[in-house]
């Protein structure tokens, strides 16, 4: 996570580095024990000792969710432009190129069709490794097309979110992706589609305040940071310490904002069973 682009890394997750370092063994940020990488991978990047959920890329997520070889990527040619010719300490153009080289991806999302335990579904996965999973035009357009395709085909829709929010470098156009994706979901809802939103660490800002909170069913991975405002902004506003566990999945569950907290190893079966209950 070299490039900090939207909300700063420290704001989204203070004092905790969850990026997976290289090497055979690594220290788990949850329990500080050394974990064998192969065991971690076998356990879907969840610590076998303490169930700490490591952050994973969109591609890895898609692979985890899909039945073997069933993921068919869609809308893969969408490429970000620099409509505002945005420049801060670095130009957006340079940032994009750097992120594309770093990740081998065009932007912060993977979308497509897959089978989840034999149930066909349209799926989007946001990618934190690309500019903090921020939503600009490409992410918004990809999500909208996926929703529209789900509406057209009547397939259930799953969106796995992790994002620092709307992408500042596309300013108003990023903001409008919130309205665009929400409007597409309204039509999908009118058509009777089932939308399962999966919130993972971290989901904040304009992503939370649009499609991520609009699921018919909302699932969250354990201990994920989920909120509208970042913890640091809240702290600066109210000038007091935030309570322990504030804006974490379990807090949202208690507050009535998500339906279930589901550990990663159970996610596939949970999705499959919800599709059986509610899908067409």
């Amino acid at each position, binding site marked *: 996570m070299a490039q900090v682009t939207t909300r700063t890394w420290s704001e989204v997750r203070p004092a905790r580095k969850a990026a997976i370092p290289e090497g055979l063994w690594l220290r788990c940020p949850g329990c500080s024990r050394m974990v064998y990488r192969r065991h971690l991978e076998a356990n879907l990047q969840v610590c076998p000792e303490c169930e700490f959920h490591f952050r994973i890329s969109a591609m890895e997520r898609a692979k985890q969710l899909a039945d073997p070889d069933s993921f068919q990527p869609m809308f893969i040619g969408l*490429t970000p432009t620099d409509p505002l010719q945005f420049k801060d300490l670095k130009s957006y153009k340079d940032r994009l190129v750097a992120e*594309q080289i770093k990740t081998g991806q065009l932007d912060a999302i993977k979308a497509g069709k897959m089978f989840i335990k034999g149930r066909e579904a349209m799926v989007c996965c946001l990618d934190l490794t690309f500019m903090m999973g921020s939503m600009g035009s490409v992410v918004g357009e990809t999500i909208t097309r996926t929703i529209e395709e789900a509406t057209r085909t009547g397939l259930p829709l799953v969106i796995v979110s992790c994002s620092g929010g709307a992408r500042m470098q596309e300013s108003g156009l990023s903001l409008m992706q919130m309205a665009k994706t929400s409007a597409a979901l309204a039509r999908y809802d009118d058509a009777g589609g089932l939308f399962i939103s999966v919130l993972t660490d971290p989901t904040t800002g304009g992503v939370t305040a649009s499609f991520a909170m609009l699921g018919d069913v909302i699932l969250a991975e354990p201990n994920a940071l989920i909120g509208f405002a970042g913890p640091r902004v809240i702290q600066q506003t109210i000038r007091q310490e935030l309570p322990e566990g504030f804006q974490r999945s379990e807090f949202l569950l208690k507050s009535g904002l998500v339906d279930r907290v589901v550990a990663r190893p159970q996610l596939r079966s949970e999705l499959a069973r919800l599709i059986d209950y509610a899908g067409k």
Partner: protein
Amino acid sequence: MSRFYQLDFEKPLTELEQMIDAAEIRLKEEMAAAASAAPGSISPAVMTIQAELDDLRRRHTESLAELYTQLGPWETVRVARHPNRPQTREYLNLICRDFAELHGDRRYGDDPAIVTGFGRIGPVKCLIVGHQKGKETQEKIACHFGCAHPEGYRKALAKMKLAEKFGVPVVTLVDTPGAYPGLGAEQRGQAEAIAVNMLEMSRLRTPIVSIVIGEGGSGGALGIAVADRVAMLQHAWYSVISPEGCAAILWKEANEQTNAAAARALKLTARDNLELGIIDEVIPEPLGAAHRDPRAAADHLQRWIVARLQDLKTIPLDRLLDARYERFRRMGSYAEQASPDGLAQTIAGG
């Protein structure tokens, strides 16, 4: 009235204004003196001061025009935040007859940061929703300076549903630095409230017009701004984040210089938003911005609202909703490659 609060870039104006004030006092004194000395006659001293005053006023108007046509983005943000700038309640007093305020979200509370109610604007019956930042200290605190809580967004939606039920068009006035970032707001689902509003507004079966009258801060603004027609007052701003927020993150520090740089980069002025296709129209403000002449600003606003609502009334609802969908559907800027392999290879090679 602007004299109680100074924007630093208005300093040249302030001096002229002080000279005008002084000249006006002298004029009164001379006229009184002349009247008692020789009633009915014209005093040369009075004429001199009158000429001086005319000249000062002319120079003042010229400087004002020059200053406000060259306003930079950061200056625009500060004009949009001017404490005397008219807010929703002031516009309601000026353009709305017989306002019937409706309170509360029926779930948690009544957020004064969003005002809702039925009213008549010109000949049009409508449902009005607007952010209120507050004018006096007490009101500002109660309104959290225009930063609404989830109950504010839910109140807005509940009342818009009434408008839909009774076939009344909706007018929203946007003026917020952003939705409130706090413990209660998060716990009660700030993000959900905003998201649901956008979803429901996109399919609300009645015409909607939105105007950014001051600050259009991110999701907090958009939460009441999904509409058939969206406009901005000339000196309003609308963006994904405030210049200070953006500067703090991307420039690592918010100060006058970085705020100005961020304001420029964010393309947040009315003209920028028009060019980006985010808004449909810019509503002109009187010379020297709305705070100098709220009445004139309100007249422009009223004329726009009435005209647009009368246009929209003629469009069949299904077509209106399709057009509303398309309005937001087309937003964004991206390229599309037939095959991404070319670039993937470039990346691998680089």
